[in-house]
């Protein structure tokens, strides 16, 4: 709760700074502010209580995930200075909206009530509609925001309808009450209305996570959105939605299997296949990362399907590994876009010659996403696969590893371009702090691979 409040305050403060036209103060305020709210979040550790009649439930899972979200946002804000280097106009609105989106995301980690879930999702989404179109002059940005908005509001209609149906059949928005309803009705079979509500809710969340066939927005929107915000979408938004789904399942279906698993499994399988296979043909890194994020949604669903005590751990680890790797990839993407004006793979040619740290970072990120040990991505995949295998979802794991094998085809494209292709030499314009930051991300990826117990034992 403290984190929600502190973040909201931070957002408002940022807006005030905007009014005061103190552009240079923005990041110096935001970064410590995020750290403070991170600390406040962590202070909730082991609190385990419900607030406002269980509207918000603070438990360790929520704390861990919201810490991850805040931390990811922090990592993204570290890139902001570089990204908006040449922008003259005040950025307080964008930053504030990002922070508000984060508030929504954090809310999705804590909700104990479907109302709160809805509010969290909408806070996040509405903020994102704005952010996606924040580059007003670019027609791609416009297109991205339009697509995102139309599809997003359309699908949130379904989400709402689902919530309404759940409410109608169980008589409450409260997750525990719904759980009680499920427990009492599971024997004679859940009524169709409940089932319809359940699946509509899943569909609504799937859209946010970008699970096939509700993933169509992702590549287009990712590509059109300003890169920094794409990073935000790919990491924070996705993780928040996954967490929301996990939370919903973990409470309402605690100890109950079989109602939704097969559907989610099939969706996960389709997502992995589509994400990985389509990824191969993409000509530029940003769009490729969109497909990569789709396929990773599929992997995360693997843990969801194999619902057990380990799921949260698996998801947490995977989320961290994934978002760190993705953010570092976007960090390099930002630099390359700045230097070359585009992010076609050709622009990465021969990059390693003069930009060893940058190239190394991107390479490590790609390898981590591929799932090569001993990087964090591998441990993440290991947790997912092992959870899935334990629950007997072997066929799904086989699809997943087939997808991993295919993913080599595109994750290696930037590596090959950077290291093995000859071309004119480029020097990326990255400041020392930026370099330090990406190096930090890389180290994090490597360290998490070596010391997975830092995260795996938490929840």
């Amino acid at each position, binding site marked *: 709760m403290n984190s929600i409040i502190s973040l909201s305050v931070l957002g408002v403060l940022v807006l005030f700074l905007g009014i005061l036209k103190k552009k240079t103060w923005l990041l110096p305020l935001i970064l410590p502010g995020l750290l403070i709210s991170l600390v406040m979040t962590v202070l909730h550790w082991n609190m385990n209580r419900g607030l406002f009649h269980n509207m918000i439930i603070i438990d360790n899972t929520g704390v861990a995930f919201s810490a991850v979200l805040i931390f990811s946002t922090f990592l993204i804000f570290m890139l902001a200075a570089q990204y908006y280097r040449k922008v003259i106009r005040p950025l307080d609105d964008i930053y504030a909206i990002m922070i508000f989106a984060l508030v929504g995301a954090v809310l999705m980690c804590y909700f104990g009530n479907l109302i709160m879930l809805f509010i969290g999702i909408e806070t996040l989404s509405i903020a994102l509609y704005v952010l996606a179109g924040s580059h007003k002059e670019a027609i791609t940005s416009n297109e991205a925001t339009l697509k995102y908005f139309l599809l997003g509001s359309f699908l949130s209609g379904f989400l709402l309808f689902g919530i309404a149906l759940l409410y109608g059949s169980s008589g409450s928005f409260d997750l525990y009450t719904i759980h009680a309803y499920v427990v009492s009705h599971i024997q004679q079979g859940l009524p169709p209305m409940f089932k319809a509500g359940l699946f509509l809710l899943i569909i609504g969340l799937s859209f946010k996570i970008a699970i096939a066939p509700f993933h169509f927005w992702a590549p287009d929107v990712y590509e059109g959105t300003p890169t920094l915000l794409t990073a935000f979408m790919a990491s924070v938004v996705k993780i928040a939605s996954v967490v929301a789904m996990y939370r919903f399942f973990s409470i309402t279906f605690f100890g109950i299997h079989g109602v939704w698993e097969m559907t989610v499994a099939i969706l996960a399988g389709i997502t992995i296949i589509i994400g990985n296979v389509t990824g191969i043909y993409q000509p530029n890194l940003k769009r490729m990362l969109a497909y990569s994020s789709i396929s990773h949604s599929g992997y995360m669903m693997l843990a969801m399907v194999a619902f057990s005590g380990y799921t949260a751990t698996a998801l947490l680890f995977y989320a961290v590994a994934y978002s760190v790797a993705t953010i570092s990839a976007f960090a390099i993407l930002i630099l390359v876009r700045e230097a070359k004006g585009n992010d076609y793979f050709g622009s990465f040619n021969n990059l390693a010659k003069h930009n060893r740290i940058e190239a190394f970072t991107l390479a490590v990120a790609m*390898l981590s996403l*591929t799932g*090569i*040990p*001993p990087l964090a991505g*591998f441990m993440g995949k*290991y*947790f997912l*696969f*092992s959870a899935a*295998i*334990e629950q007997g979802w*072997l066929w799904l*794991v*086989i699809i997943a*590893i*087939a997808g*991993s*094998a295919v993913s*080599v*085809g595109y994750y*290696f494209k930037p590596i*090959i371009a950077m*290291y*093995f*292709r000859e071309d004119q030499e480029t020097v990326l314009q990255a400041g020392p702090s930026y370099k330090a930051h990406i190096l930090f991300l890389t180290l994090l990826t490597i360290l998490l691979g070596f010391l*997975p*117990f830092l995260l*795996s*034992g938490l929840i």
Partner: protein
Amino acid sequence: MLTLTLIVFPLLVAIGLFFIKDGKWAGNLALATALIEFGISVAALVQYFLFCHCLLLFHLEWLADYGISLKFGIDGLSMLLILLTTFLIPIIIYSSLGQKIQRSSSFYSLIILMQAGLIGVFTAFDGMMFYIFWELTLIPAYFIAAYWGGENRIRITLKFFAYTFSGSLLMLIAIIYLYFRTPLPHSFDHIWLYASNLNPGEQLWIFLAFFIAFAIKVPVFPFHTWQPDTYVTAPYSGSMLLGGLMSKMGLFGMIRWMIPITYTELTRTGGFFVIFPVIGIVYASLIALRQDDLKRLVAYSSVAHLGLVAAGAMTLNAIAMQGAMIQMVSHGINIVGLFILVQYIEARTKTRSIAELGGIALKAPRLAVFFMIILLGSIALPLTDGFVGEFLILLGMFKYNAVFAAVSGLTIIFGAVYMLWMYQRVMLGNTKAATEQISDLNWKEMIPLIAIVIMVIWIGVAPGMFMKLAENGVGQVIGIIR
């Protein structure tokens, strides 16, 4: 402690090397590291023989909840392959010192990293650690081949990576699956994995997963098509690493993991899977006949020889498995020797095409003599290293299935045919335009070859120590099978 040092020391050096400026001393530093590593492994060998004849074990909890621990140990099997690794890596580094290498510090860093990975693979007693190090070796191998490689390197090395990686992923699922079939509390420890409780269907697919993963790595027919291209395109050091050491990972994996875990599947299918490597022996030998590129010829010969080793290992027979262990070492030594020689030839003549070579023995008799000796080792002449292994493998296979042994035995004939024909065209006869000005080896160039020749003869004449090392490990595996 030595076990841990063997892994961690190169790992640290590799990281350090990565950051230093390019220059000649990157290579020298790497060489020094490799030599120290060799010293450590010899110390481990001494410790092994003097004190315990058993595991030099390092054990540390890592992911206790998930049954993964840092369990590394040295038994006979590991010792043999560690010695091979630490013996070959200095030679590989040394043989590359003379060349101009771009970004030499990264190059050597990757080689040393590869060494750490290899030793990790050979010492891992924890299934997950095995897998992690298994993949860890792939990255340096890929980068070495793709960055310092020749023609078409991007396409070929990507195929190499994707192919081997796909195989490894299959193994990953198999290992994880096994974990959940181990007795409670689950563990990735090798003893637990050996004790996993599988029904026949599970046996089959787990066996297949392991088999395909290892078969791709070795490579065993028909999973070998990445290999000739990769060997050809990789720089010489890369080819040596791949052919001399990385292929041993697959074979080692078969003996350490696949066979103890799924041997019942091998016995149940009655040698069906042995057919693949056996076909590969004849097939690759026949193809090797007509190859014009020296590296490609060596690559195909490697498919044939390693096919024999794989077949030997899979016959589940103590003698053949013993032979397989010895043959792994010999093949590693021989193929590195051959690659060094081909490297010298290419450096002098700028070509690897057999058709353009000839008469080298006239101008460079030392080169010819070394080539002959290593070639003899490779075609398994008695008193060279190749013979001991092949003899035992064939003997063991004969006990298992005489027809297989007879077909595999064709390697004795075919090996001689393509190797001698190659030797004749490259070394003998009159000189050609490319070889007119060829100079003989100097002392510096001869050092690695002398080391290799000593090993060729040592293993051939007095394989006692190696036999003893292998006996210990093979005995355990056979013990499990019985």
